[in-house]
């Protein structure tokens, strides 16, 4: 590990270790009931002891999140391209895109179960619904911020709308899309777990089951697994954006 990577990783690891140790001490000292707030050591214990079922649930949730993200990024980019087609399109349809931003997923999840039935399809739909707005909004901002001089250059050489979209507008919007995906990744995990509360399966059901059995330690362990999933996705999008933009974007080259 290089010193720079170490310098980047060490502070958050240090604060995590200190925070956990502090929580352990405070909970022990105040003798808090494990039903309210289990000690970090108890949570770690549960996370290891139940690793089998938790891991299987994590896999299920991860599959739903990935499918949801795939869906929201594809549909989101397509929607942004349509909205960017003309000022009329944007005025007429963008307000409906904002619907996805303000809709409470908790309220809409039962509806998704009615439409798609119990099981992974409703969960995927929930993950897609909550994660589509940042993709639309960011991609649209990118498509609309294309350098006017470059747009002139494409027109000067008789480029078709399709060629301009493919060779100028979409690549121009790529960094914006990747920023949107970073936000979408975290939201998709939330959407999937809320979807699982209603539609079944995955970490959502583990949380519900543990709650009913008053296994607060297991609830925390499941939350830990879900956080790891969110972090891994966030990291994967970050890595993808570093690879995709390594040559050109100021946010990735000037380090």
């Amino acid at each position, binding site marked *: 590990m290089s010193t720079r990577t170490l310098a980047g990783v060490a502070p958050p690891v240090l604060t995590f270790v200190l925070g956990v140790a502090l929580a352990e001490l405070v909970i022990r000292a105040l003798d808090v009931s494990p039903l309210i707030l289990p000690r970090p050591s108890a949570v770690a214990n549960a996370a290891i002891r139940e690793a089998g079922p938790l891991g299987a649930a994590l896999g299920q949730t991860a599959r739903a999140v990935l499918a949801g993200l795939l869906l929201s990024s594809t549909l989101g980019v397509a929607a942004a391209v349509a909205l960017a087609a003309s000022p009329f399109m944007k005025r007429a349809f963008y307000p409906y895109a904002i619907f996805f931003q303000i809709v409470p997923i908790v309220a809409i999840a039962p509806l998704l179960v009615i439409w798609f039935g119990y099981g992974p399809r409703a969960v995927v739909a929930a993950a897609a619904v909550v994660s589509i707005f940042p993709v639309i909004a960011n991609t649209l901002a990118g498509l609309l911020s294309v*350098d006017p*001089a*470059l747009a*002139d*250059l*494409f*027109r*000067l*050489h*008789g*480029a078709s709308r399709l*060629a301009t979209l493919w*060779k*100028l507008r979409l*690549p121009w919007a*790529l960094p914006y899309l990747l920023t949107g995906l970073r936000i979408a990744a975290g939201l998709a995990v939330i959407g999937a777990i809320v979807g699982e509360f209603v539609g079944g399966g995955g970490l959502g059901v583990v949380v519900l089951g543990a709650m009913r059995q008053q296994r607060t330690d297991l609830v925390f362990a499941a939350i830990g697994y879900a956080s790891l999933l969110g972090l891994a996705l966030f990291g994967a999008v970050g890595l993808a954006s570093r690879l995709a*933009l390594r*040559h*050109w*974007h*100021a946010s990735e*080259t000037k380090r």
Partner: protein
Amino acid sequence: MDRAVAIALEGVHRTFRSESGGEVPALAGIDLAVAAGEFVALLGPSGCGKSTLLRLVAGLDRPERGAVRSAAGRVGMVFQDAHLLPWRDVLANVALPLELLGRRPAERRAQAAAAIEQVGLGDAAERYPAELSGGMRMRASLARALVTEPRLLLLDEPFAALDELTRMALDDELRRLWRAAGLTVLFVTHSIGEAAYLAERVVVLSRRPARVVLDHAVALPAERAATLRAEPAFARELGVLQDALRRGAALP
């Protein structure tokens, strides 16, 4: 000298509507004829409508009144700043116009490499814009404009953002390319010195809305070098142009 007319503007008017609904006239009755093979500088204050004029000549915009005729054939354009695609290396950037025109990959690569060589960027063909200096980026932009072998080259204050030395080097480069390729050049600038040094003919525009204040044939030798800038003949040209700019600024 009797040369074919490459560009003709007759009574060209162009007005823009501002956000608040007011009308901002950019061009108010411009007449201008440029002969094939001429190097013409359009000199005027910033924001006077020079860029609008250039976009009209390129066919990227239309006048409300008047006519813009261009018999120049293929057009190349260089903008303020280089405006390269950051995700493409220099070679792919320079080849872009050929790609848009639907040329074959092998032909694109060969012609782009030749254009890159022409502007002296030969060893940077595989580098990305983010890795180049401002001057090198502008050279790449120039190569991109030349790659289609245009008959008319339009430049919109291309070297304004560069340092003095780089700018002078590129001025010389541009004159060399113009003399070698025999193309028509329309060069927009707000720099009196650059207009006098580069062009055979300088058209001075007034402040907005742009009108032609002076159409002036530069009395300097065809062979120009940096030492020219220190000669009395050059200073005389500067005086003439400066005087015309002042008159243009005083117009209502």
